[in-house]
């Protein structure tokens, strides 16, 4: 059964506006492998091209997980600098995309765990009702042909509670949930990125979804 809005994130399939400009300069769009090889030889533009190819998703992941721009910036910077430092050791045992996301998820995990150990430094996990974006209601109205105000109100309530419930998940569960539902990745790919099996990821997703369902109570 097809699901709503789940994009498939395959390495090398996407091109951002910024990346397109640089690709034009390079003459043609190169695949990840070629770019990585060039970057390993010291070609800075090749590395920058790789960065621009994936950094939008990396920042989205960091923002969704940390919920604070300054923290997301730290994660972005640390992840790409680690990638740059370790690129000479990359041996193409997996795709560059998987390798990069492995670094990003590790940095995010460290960051979330560090923050959890400092309660005074935690971002607000649950959004107040007033903080819910105005367009959420509109989105629900567009989605539901019936334009039922009662249903829309319930949808809004669920949106608030989903945000709150996400805050109750462990760092690992949150990353898996985020990568599955908001980055559109398959569980097998997530397992590769986290350096674990698909079954383990499935278990985590099951636990996370169940927690979420319990939090949402009878609203569903």
């Amino acid at each position, binding site marked *: 059964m097809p699901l709503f809005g789940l994009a498939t994130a395959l390495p090398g399939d996407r091109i951002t506006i910024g990346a397109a400009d640089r690709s034009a300069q390079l003459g043609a769009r190169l695949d990840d492998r070629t770019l990585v090889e060039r970057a390993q030889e010291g070609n*800075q533009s090749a590395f920058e091209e790789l960065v621009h190819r994936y950094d939008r998703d990396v920042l989205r992941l960091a923002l969704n997980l940390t919920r604070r721009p300054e923290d997301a910036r730290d994660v972005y910077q640390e992840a790409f600098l680690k990638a740059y430092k370790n690129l000479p050791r990359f041996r193409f045992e997996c795709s560059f995309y998987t390798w990069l996301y492995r670094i990003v998820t590790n940095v995010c995990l460290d960051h979330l765990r560090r923050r959890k150990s400092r309660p005074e430094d935690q971002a607000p996990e649950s959004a107040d009702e007033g903080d819910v974006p105005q367009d959420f209601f509109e989105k629900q109205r567009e989605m539901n042909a019936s334009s039922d105000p009662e249903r829309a109100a319930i949808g809004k309530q669920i949106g608030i509670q989903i945000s709150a419930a996400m805050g109750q998940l462990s760092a690992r569960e949150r990353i898996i949930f985020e990568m599955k539902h908001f980055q559109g990745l*398959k569980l097998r790919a997530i397992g590769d990125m986290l350096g674990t099996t698909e079954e383990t990821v499935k278990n985590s997703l099951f636990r996370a979804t169940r927690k979420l369902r319990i939090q949402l109570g009878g609203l569903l």
Partner: protein
Amino acid sequence: MKPLENDKLAKSAQANASALEVNCESAERLLIYYACDEAKPEERAAVEQHVCECANCAAMLAVELRLQQMLATMPQTADELDLAGELLAQCRSELAEALDDSRDRTALGLQSQGFLARCFAWCRMEMVMHPAMGAAFFVLMGLAVGRVMPNASNGTQQAGLIPTSTVYASPRISDQQLQNMNVSGIYLVPDGTAGGQSVELHLRAMQPIVITGGPDDEDVKRVLSFVMTNNQSDSDVRMDSVDVLRSSTNDAEVRRVLCATSLHDANASVRLRALEALHGFEQDDTVRDTLLDALMHDSNPGVRIEAVSELRATVESGKATADPRIARVLRDLSEHDSNNYIRLQAAAAVRNLAPQQ
């Protein structure tokens, strides 16, 4: 769920008739995987077959699908926080700078210049990646250098490597003011260095004056010396003055003031304290004269005991045996002093002195 969908599910389930048995308990997990498109083909078939037969699980599947729908359409935090892409642009700019920094380092070839260069390069990279840690490191470095540099500078000057010139600032307090003032209080205040203190002198004059400085400060020494030499203020202030000046006894002028106080201060406790402050300088002729003078003429036995103890220590260390006055005074004291303890001390000193002579 609509009837048409139910029919489709049933047909699909029959087509994929599999051996996988699903009950309501095991269905919970599979329904989640099914809803998010992560169920294997045989699991999908089993779920579809089960929900056709079980209304509860069909309802649960509907709930799961509704949750998926909500998640897919829910606005994301990233959209709210960086709708215009400004943060992304900022991140790219910062990363470019960090990469440029790294590139410069490589261009300089630091990595091939040995261990120290590699350490330096590693530190720079760590500081780029952990700016807070880098800032803390520089603060600590600053503190360490701040503590070490003054000592290093003194050492260099002592070694005569750098020609030094001494510049004296004009005194902050004039002779006229000095004559007309009176010290009302001496306070020791921490000066911010580890264990360091500065002195605060409160002067009563036509206009109240406060002088602040270290014990070596010229103005501080000048005022305290004046107080002690002229028996000014009360004895507590003079006692405090001695305590402040005793840290500057390397200064011959301070020793001269302490000697004068030992002999002429009106208060015996102040005289005694001044004598104690001179401990260790018995080889200085002025100090030795002061000790002998105090022994012979001070009316207070406490002061004389301090003086005889100092002299005896000097004799025993063999530092002042060449001065004939010492033996004469000690012999005289051992016979005539009114204090028994002083006579005994003096006699012991004479006995020590005899074999040396």
